[in-house]
């Protein structure tokens, strides 16, 4: 991991089943004092599905960085 420069990817990923996330977050969500009405459903979806999207994002970044590192190594040879 370190050799590939992936320290920055030590971030939170999916932790609970998706259905459970939804149930939990319906009752425990942070509201922001936005001037736009962000919509309750939209807020809930972000919090509930954020873990999934975050996890995919981490995997995607890891894959890109790993691919880049392999290509760099190969071209250095």
């Amino acid at each position, binding site marked *: 991991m370190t050799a590939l420069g992936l320290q920055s990817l030590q971030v939170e990923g999916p932790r609970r089943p998706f259905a459970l996330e939804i149930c939990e977050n319906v009752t425990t969500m942070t509201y922001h004092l936005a001037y736009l009405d962000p919509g309750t459903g939209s807020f809930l979806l*972000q*919090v509930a599905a954020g873990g999934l*999207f975050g996890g995919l994002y981490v995997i995607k970044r890891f894959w890109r960085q790993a691919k880049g590192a392999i290509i760099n190594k190969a071209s250095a040879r």
Partner: protein
Amino acid sequence: MNAIDRLGASYRDPSGFVFRRDGELLRQINHSYRSDYGTLAESGLYRSIVEAGQLIEHEEIDAPLADPQTGWKIIRPRTLGFISYPYEWCFSQLKDAALTTLAIQKQALHHGMSLKDASAYNIQFDQGRPVLIDTLSFERYEDGQPWAAYRQACQHFLAPLTLMALRDVRLNQLLLTNIDGIPLDLASALLPRSSRLRFSLLMHIHLHAKMQRKHSVESQKPATSRKLGRTRLLGIIDSLESAIRKLDWQPRGTEWSDYYQDTNYSDAAMDRKRQIVSHFIDATAPASVWDLGANTGEFSRLASDRGIPTIAFDIDPAAVEKNYRRVKERGEKHLLPLLIDLTNPSPAIGWNNAERMSLPERGPADLVLALALVHHLAISGNVPLGHIARFLHRLARRLAIEFVPKNDSQVGRLLVVRKDIFPDYTQEAFEAEFGRYFVIRRQENVAGSSRIMYLMDRREGQ
């Protein structure tokens, strides 16, 4: 006392507002936004996105506040020549506007800020590229906060783009009747079932619509505890971006996109027409040109290639798409293709009918080109010549217009399957009707055809 004219669209955000004073466009920043405005500069975000051409630049000026009760500072943004709206954009314009918004949001998060809105109306096209015009769209990012503008980003960008790509490109017109973007339940109902097979669309549109419906009447403010981490937020934005990148629409098979291949103009007549139009442009040296019925912008470029800010309007989404792609390929800075149905031009919409301007309110242009247009309006659209002249009088200080007589085969084509109920469609009637609103300065026959080109000046006081 200087008269202050507050813009009709600038009332939602308590951070400030845009107004005109003595014709100059200014923005008041309110005390409530002072801290976020400071962060915008100190974090380096302002400089970063202005240098990337993603945000319109401004200067701080020492000027009286428009509203001293709330005001803190006045800034003068660089002004744009023409304001366009998402329902006037082709597919790729809306897509580029969406990707620019998401790129700005990623930059903002990188600098510890976040977009507090993601309105397509905050994006304008400047020198061929989308740019954010609302300097007050940023707020300090607080770790754990979901994105307040997520719903707006889905309604203003993802939903219309998905409908255009997967159902019908003309569905962008739903933005006209839904000023805050296409409701997700409507988008979900209109999209093909197969769209559910794409994970990002399933989540951001279909499930999002269900969640909105389920929680639409909740009024209780839930207690705080669970938060949305920064990586999760970046994951949502990345997913939106990737969903939008994958959407595509190819311009083919619509009304006018192959017009020039299909016309009966000889090469010599086309060359002659180009010469006449070029001559009219040079003779009038306009500061702005609107080309009505521009197709893919063949004649618009006679003006824009001279460095004149030019808008190329057409009714055909494929023609506008092709034109915009050419603008991007050639890196053209002075041409803006837009979608307009001249028989039903964009109206004034929104609160008090003053948020989004009608087409005539955004004029007049110094020079309007109306080439091979009048016969379509008069014969296909049944619009009397006098009505066309009156409408163009609202749009143009000067008018370069082509009259296509009935013996032209293009007019013949329009009359093939319908009764000729246009006895007044003659050159004499054309000159008489237009003569009421314009002074005819020049008249040139297009050699090799029966068409006539006119250069006219608007009569004032009509």
